């Protein structure tokens, strides 16, 4: 197909630059143009060629589509077929796009907000730096451990060691003030404390100890503690660090904690 140029003249009928559709080349010419939603028919005749101000004659077309077509025909009677036909085509197109505009304004319009490149780049860079400064993994881990310490999880996780230590130390302080053999107690306590940390993953021992704490008085505590120390010594030697490593190795141990509880009592009864 042959490429055609566009005509820049605003009164052009078809928009293409041809000899037949140039408003400057033809002395008898007509166009349809719209202004503020109303369509007008513009006409140019030879008689007014000398008066540029009155050259283009303007006729308002009615809003009714068929009536407007009749008006075009009426005004351009005896004019060449080409111009009449093209005027009507142009008028049709214009009315169609006016209808579309009216429909679209009723719907929600999408507002385009231009992005500023400099600002975008700045924000992205700041985001990266903030991400690095945030150290999210550490922050989350710290927060979770905090919550564990403050006992928000209740009894689900069975190693609240620090709480035990504090409780023990309090009770030890009480028994020290009362009984004579302070050093033995302290030694036992120290040993107990150490061993407890060593085998921290084991639940039942701690729970047993807890029960014993509640039941016994201070003097009996010493004996109990010594016994516990011996038991724990034997336990710790036999078991070593394996119970800790077992669960810690697996990454998705959903059922793990329950598993420990099942095995613990059996081994304890054997040693006892």
């Amino acid at each position, binding site marked *: 197909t042959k490429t055609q140029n566009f005509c820049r003249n605003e009164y052009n009928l078809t928009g293409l630059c041809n000899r037949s559709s140039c408003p400057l080349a033809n002395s008898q010419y007509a166009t349809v143009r719209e202004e503020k939603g109303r369509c007008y028919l513009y006409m140019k005749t030879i008689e007014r060629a000398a008066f540029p101000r009155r050259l283009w004659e303007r006729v308002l077309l009615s809003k009714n589509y068929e009536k407007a077509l009749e008006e075009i025909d009426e005004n351009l009677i005896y004019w060449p077929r080409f111009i009449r036909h093209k005027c009507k085509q142009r008028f049709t197109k214009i009315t169609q796009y006016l209808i579309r505009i009216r429909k679209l304004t009723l719907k929600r319009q999408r507002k385009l907000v231009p992005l500023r490149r400099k600002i975008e780049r700045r924000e992205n860079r700041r985001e990266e730096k903030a991400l690095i400064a*945030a150290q*999210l993994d550490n922050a989350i881990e710290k927060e979770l451990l905090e919550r564990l310490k403050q006992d928000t999880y209740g009894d689900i996780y069975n190693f609240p060691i620090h709480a035990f230590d504090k409780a023990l130390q309090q009770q030890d302080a009480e028994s020290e003030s009362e009984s004579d053999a302070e050093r033995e107690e302290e030694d036992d306590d120290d040993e107990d404390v150490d061993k407890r940390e060593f085998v921290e993953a084991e639940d039942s021992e701690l729970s047993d100890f807890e029960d014993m704490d509640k039941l016994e008085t201070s003097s009996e505590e010493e004996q109990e503690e010594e016994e516990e120390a011996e038991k724990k010594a034997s336990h710790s030697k036999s078991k070593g660090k394996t119970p800790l490593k077992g669960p810690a190795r697996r990454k998705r141990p959903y059922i793990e904690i329950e598993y420990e509880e099942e095995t613990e009592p059996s081994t304890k009864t054997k040693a006892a």
Partner: protein
Amino acid sequence: AGDGSGPVPGDGTDPPAPERVLFPPTFSVSEIKNKQRRHFMFLRWKQQQRKEKLALKKKRRKEREALGDKAPPKAIPKTIENQRVYDETTVDPNDEEVAFDEATDEFAPYFNRQTVPKILITTSDRPRGRTVRFCEQLATVLPNSHVYYRRGLALKRIIPQCIARDFTDLIVINEDRKIPNGLVLSHLPDGPTAHFRMSSVRLRKEIKRKGKEPTEHVPEVILNNFTTRLGHSIGRMFAALFPHDPQFIGRQVATFHNQRDYIFFRFHRYIFKSEKKVGIQELGPRFTLKLRSLQKGTFDSKFGEYEWIHKRREMDTSRRKFHL
């Protein structure tokens, strides 16, 4: 010529002879016209600088050790968080006024456990694949949430319907060029509306992890670093998305971490390996939000009353001033 850079010729530890030739003449490295030679000389000069710096450090360390206990305490490096301009609206934990406000604002029924959150997630018109998938994943993260597609419906008309059907929150994800880039979070029975800019969205398959999908358990919520009044209200908005009773069996945690006005959202599953160690594994989508505006009522672009808008000219002037 003379001593161009004085102290260096005394540095007798450099064996290659050209080192000493470099510095006495007063030309700087940038005056050599030949690019290759200039580059070479520049590298040499850089090595020299590095050596000097290392020597200085060593000297300082030795001095410090020699002083022992009398040494001055180590200087704390300045960070942006350290140097942050003090914001007068920072919330003091014991502030009564704040506590009173929070007891009577729109989230009070939620925090008094009177309402259970029910969330509606939707997008702008014609969402593309990535946004759709992101919406689905978000729906799995937030318990009690539903995704509805918007086929050209106006938000103003959706909102009364949502209120009628007992939804408590509305999330609209705005999309641009096939990626989600904006988030509007609106608390429904006449609550505040926050408009965020969303960036670096990663879907579940793009995150490097080997876990499974999030389960139906209610996750815990961590809100970090929301210090000012504005940050506090935004934090409460986020907290109001999740039901109040987290199921610890699920061991899932959703984190909103605010750092320098960027809110990072992550969703993890945790396991306590020991008393002092916790392992976390990331599942679920991740994204970052930056607050653009906070409106008092529900979403209304024309007549809404804005509580806070980000004004670039005024608010972005200082690098150490943050609002959240």
